[in-house]
């Protein structure tokens, strides 16, 4: 019996030793095909799946090997583990959308120390842990676009209210600052009457929107700047029977808002084209690995999408895109 127990243990050790003695360089193949690893915040997220479609397009055009992998559970350390596995796997470049800014930077710095090129997209890491950040939208770009769209929908006059994530959320505060700047600069006949938090909950956004409408009878528009708030506000307007009277615009995903946009409750949804984000990210990662993209460059040409501006170490995707009744069916994310 004792022997039977020891046999597999012995086999296991043999396998281990045989495995360990394998030289890591024996894996290298004759031709050098670039391997680029793309890390989403969450693998099943529709937003990142549509990023992946663009990324695959770029990978096909460039002839690079693309790995797309990311957390499927809620473990915040998972991204680090995946990056560390990629380091051992010996990929050429890593493009990461970071869930934990400081945490992931530890692993990304390690990758850089091993000669792997690192860029970030969607959500940045610490600046010293990556070469470039593919910035999908500057706060200024988002703020201005939202305010301009609000003005267009309301005919540049009347009262409007904002539903935000929470009063302290860093992103939202930054956007709000630019919304207010644009308002003061260009639209004197419009008035911001209230800013309400929804805690990133659709239900709460709906309650807040209902309260806003009864407290401000002259309200002409609700601007929702947290993604669950857009369908939430739209549902409130629809139930109050005020579609067309109180307009809804916001920052969110087309799929979540498709119904309301097609029903004419929500006028438009603003976001960037996620496919383009994935495409640009892979193009930039490949160029970086091939030495075609270097620190200090001021522009970058990404295949069929044309030329993008680089500000410092941020590659800018450009102005956000407006999804409305006419074009929303062309997008699925």
């Amino acid at each position, binding site marked *: *019996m004792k022997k*039977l*127990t020891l046999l*597999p*243990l012995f*086999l*296991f050790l043999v*396998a*281990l030793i*045989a*495995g*360990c003695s*394998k030289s*890591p360089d*024996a*894996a290298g193949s004759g031709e050098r095909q670039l391997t680029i690893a793309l890390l989403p915040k969450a*693998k099943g997220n529709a937003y990142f799946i549509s990023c992946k479609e663009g990324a695959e397009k770029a990978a096909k055009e460039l002839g690079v090997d693309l*790995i797309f*992998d*990311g*957390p*499927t*559970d*809620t*473990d*915040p*350390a998972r991204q*680090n*583990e*995946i990056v*560390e*596995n*990629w380091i*051992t*796997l*010996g990929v050429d470049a890593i493009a990461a959308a970071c869930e*934990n*800014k*400081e*945490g992931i*930077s*530890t692993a990304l710095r*390690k990758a850089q120390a091993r000669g792997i090129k690192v860029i970030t997209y969607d959500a940045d890491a610490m600046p010293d842990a990556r070469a470039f950040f593919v910035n999908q939208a500057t706060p200024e770009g988002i703020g201005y676009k939202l305010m301009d769209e609000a003005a267009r929908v309301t005919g540049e006059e009347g009262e409007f209210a904002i539903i935000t994530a929470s009063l*302290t959320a860093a992103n939202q505060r930054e956007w709000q600052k630019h919304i207010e700047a644009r308002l003061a600069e260009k639209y004197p006949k419009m008035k911001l009457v209230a800013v309400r938090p929804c805690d990133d909950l659709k239900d709460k956004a709906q309650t807040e929107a209902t309260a806003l409408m009864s407290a401000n009878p002259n309200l002409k528009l609700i601007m929702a700047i947290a993604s669950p708030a857009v369908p939430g506000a739209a549902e409130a307007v629809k139930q109050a029977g005020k579609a067309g009277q109180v307009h809804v615009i916001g920052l969110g995903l087309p799929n979540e808002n498709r119904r309301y946009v097609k029903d004419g409750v929500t006028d438009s949804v603003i976001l960037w084209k996620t496919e383009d984000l994935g495409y640009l990210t892979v193009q930039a990662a490949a160029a970086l690995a091939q030495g075609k993209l270097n620190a200090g460059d001021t522009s970058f040409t990404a295949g069929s999408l044309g030329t993008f501006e680089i500000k410092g170490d941020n590659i800018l995707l450009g102005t956000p895109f407006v999804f409305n009744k006419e074009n929303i069916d062309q997008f699925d994310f």
Partner: protein
Amino acid sequence: MSAPVKTPQKARGWLRHETVLLVLVAAEWMYFNSVGARFGTLDNTFDILRHSVEIGLLAVAMTPIILTGGIDLSVGSLLGLCAVCFGKLWRDAGVPLPVAVAGTLALGALTGGVNATLITRLKLPPLIVTLGTFSLFRGVAEAITRGVDTFTGFPANFLFWGQERWLGMPAQAPVFIVVVVAMWLLVHRMTFGRTVRAIGFSAEGARYAGVPVERRVAMAYVLAGVIAALAAIIYTARLGQAKADAGTGYELFAITAVVLGGTSIFGGRGSVHGTLIGVAAIAVLNNGLVHARLPREAAGVLTGGLLVLALASGVLPKLWSDWRARRAVVAAAEKTVS
């Protein structure tokens, strides 16, 4: 006469479970080694070890608890709370790191003590108590940081323990080995182990045999608290950050590893080395999938499959011999009839 015959049979069954699992891990290893070009390298072996230390610690701490017939759902949340408090002590209270480490371990003992008190004094079921503290500990961690505060910027000599190598191996490995050896001795070579098993088989029986049941059970939970705190410190060093979401879902990974390792969820039977093989089975799978370029989603399916397979392998031989015995009886009966 029947009793002495039965005991070795039981022991053989137990050897068999761990043996089967070890074969499965070896098969896993060989498969990934043949598919992934760099899977079998020493670098990757150390990656696997590095990534399994926190869950390994929690699983090892969970083993005596499950042996008593209890469970601790709060260890993942406790890891989060300890990580946050460690960060708070170091950054906001300005305490030197060694003192912060000691304070965090003390906090682990204290919170483990909360579980222990509720379970042994108020006689509440461990499942309910730790389900409560599962929410409570995570909630406190979130309240302390308001969900957004992140502790970071730890000095290099601290990060060393999570990220660097010491004597060629991951720096956290020696800590893990010490805890595993200590726990193994405690469970397999000392009265503590015998008594927790006895409690798992029958708490009342153990009490009549003079075992201080409450004290032993309490000790298992306090120990789990301290080890979870240790895991929190290593986690913080590995990631270079402490945040309220640290260790989310780790309790289930730990329980899976323990059960996979052959410890009966009803208590009484199981081993620390079995748990260790269970941890290895899951860690190798998680890592190997990346190297084999297989979808990560498969990890859940395969872990579940492995669990079912390992559990079935423990039961099937008995079913088989029962069936054969029954057939022999039927055959004999048929013979007499004809």
